[in-house]
């Protein structure tokens, strides 16, 4: 819980990781390149006083995670979104067993989401069933740019992806978090294209599709798809820290999201351990749209409350104290919303 100016914010951090990127776990140069890329994100977007040493960044462990999120970070509940990356790390990048164990020991605070790779075919389906039997997760994280043998990625519209979604449906796995990354075959096309999410979301309307990083670097494609599909949501992992270095860019990202998908389908994420939630939450509560951006309405306290926790809590049935709950906005399910709130439209 975070409190400021008499307002209380229930916080759900919808995208966190427990990773091990230490050299002894790196399988190859790509393992080093991957964590170095994350470290550059960390240093480039985070304020200097929040920078960690490279050694700290390679591995945190469960104890530090609990401290950073729940003791120092105001977080009420957090959701693991593991990226396995077996082609880069000996024992995987996300520490699946350790994260599951931590969530099992702290069920009120942590939710464990699992991961799978549809290119594993039938054997992978058996594995998914067995894992679900043991871990009972409600959501999965899919990293479509994961390398596997000769393949360097897959699409959500692939036939095997559909087989896995059908299985998710049967098992009661309702929340599909997607991280689009580069290097999807064929290279002829834009590797960050989110069009395959559109296909999957139209064909599996009973599943929620949370596009992490709100589709960045293709915000426009994400907004266009999400506005038409009521089961597509936006996760703010990696988008949040732009508040610090590029506040005007961040204001426009939020302004566009509120316009295209509305205030009920946006989820706060720190993307821990790339960044820690504390400073992100403090700054987001203080954040406001720049005055000269007449195309956007100012962010309201209730919108911030929904984004910071209430939206994800609803999706994951996380109990929220009655006095902190808010009703859904009375808005259209598809298409742009609230355009009349922007100054420009008001001038008509």
């Amino acid at each position: 819980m975070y409190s400021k100016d008499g307002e209380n914010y229930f916080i759900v951090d919808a995208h966190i990781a427990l990773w091990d990127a230490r050299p002894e776990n790196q399988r190859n140069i790509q393992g080093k390149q991957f964590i170095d890329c994350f470290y550059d994100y960390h240093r480039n977007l985070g304020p200097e006083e929040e920078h960690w040493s490279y050694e700290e960044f390679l591995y945190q462990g469960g104890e530090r995670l609990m401290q950073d999120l729940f003791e120092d970070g105001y977080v009420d509940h957090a959701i693991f979104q593991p990226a396995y990356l077996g082609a880069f790390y000996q024992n995987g990048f996300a520490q699946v067993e350790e994260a599951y164990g931590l969530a099992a020991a702290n069920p009120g605070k942590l939710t464990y989401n699992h991961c799978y790779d549809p290119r594993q075919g039938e054997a992978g389906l058996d594995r998914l069933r067995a894992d679900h039997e043991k871990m009972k997760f409600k959501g999965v994280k899919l990293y479509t740019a994961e390398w596997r043998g000769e393949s360097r990625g897959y699409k959500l519209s692939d036939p095997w992806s559909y087989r896995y979604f059908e299985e998710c449906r049967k098992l009661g796995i309702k929340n599909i978090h997607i991280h689009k990354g580069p290097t999807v075959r064929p290279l002829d096309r834009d590797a960050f294209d989110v069009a395959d999410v559109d296909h999957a979301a139209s064909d599996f309307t009973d599943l929620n599709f949370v596009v992490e990083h709100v589709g960045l670097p293709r915000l426009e494609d994400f907004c266009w798809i999400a506005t038409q599909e009521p089961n597509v949501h936006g996760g703010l992992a990696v988008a949040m820290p732009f508040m610090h270095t590029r506040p005007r860019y961040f204001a426009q990202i939020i302004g566009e999201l509120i316009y295209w998908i509305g205030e009920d389908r946006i989820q706060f994420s720190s993307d821990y351990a790339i960044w820690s939630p504390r400073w992100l939450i403090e700054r987001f509560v203080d954040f406001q749209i720049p005055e000269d951006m007449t195309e956007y309405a100012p962010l309201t306290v209730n919108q911030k409350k929904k984004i910071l926790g209430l939206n994800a809590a609803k999706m994951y049935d996380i109990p929220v104290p009655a006095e902190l709950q808010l009703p859904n906005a009375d808005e259209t399910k598809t298409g742009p919303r609230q355009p009349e709130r922007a100054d420009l439209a008001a001038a008509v």
Partner: protein
Amino acid sequence: MTAALTERTLRHRDVAVSAKDVRQALGAVLDPELDEPITDLGFVRSLEITGSLAGAVVTVHLRLPTSFCSPNFAYLMASDSKDVISALPGVARVVVELDDHHDSALINAGLAADAGYRGTFGQEAEHSLEELRWTFRRKAYTAAMERCLTELLRADPTLAEESVGTVRLGDLPAGRTKDALVRRRTALGLPTQPSAVVLVDHNGVPYMPDNVPMALRRARSTRISIDGNAHFCRGLLRTRYAGSGADQSARPDGAEPADHQELLPLRVKEINP
């Protein structure tokens, strides 16, 4: 001994091509996604010219903001670099190498062998990257159009969003934003006379009045994406390679107070419930 002496002499006297020529040639190579010259982005890491009896040998190293930048874009920039330098008079041999990328080995081998896109990537390549280039040329045009119209809207509070569908090129104030739009229109083969309607799709088709606000808003999200990426990529390069900022040129579109490029005040809105 004699050969070495000859080479050294050549280096001093007879190598016609200069570093300035090479850099200028590289200025025509665009990052297809950001639609900016690689020389403005700071992607040229080093440039060396030595002589041989047949002519100059030019060696260029390129660097990118992350190891995981899309390999198709990385390949395009590297192979375009090789092409523009090879076309310079007096150049006998060109070596272009991409540093520190997850596909460096593959791409550099393909470049050295002049294997082409399909020869370099094998089963990962299907046809060509031409369509991909066009995707981003169209996005660059869309963004340039939106900048002009949003500038107009911000400058005139009485102008309604719905009415921008009839704005013509001749109605736009002269300046950098308009010049950029005219350049983008030319690249797509769209008309550039003053009577041409500004809000048209990439085929030059205008919008029905009811669809104008939506078309403008879609264009806006494209512009935000492009400006955001262009600055994030610049920033990541500076973080990754200390000192590389000195090789970057300022980008006014999407600039922030922290860029020290423009003194933009960051004044925020009041909440009006």
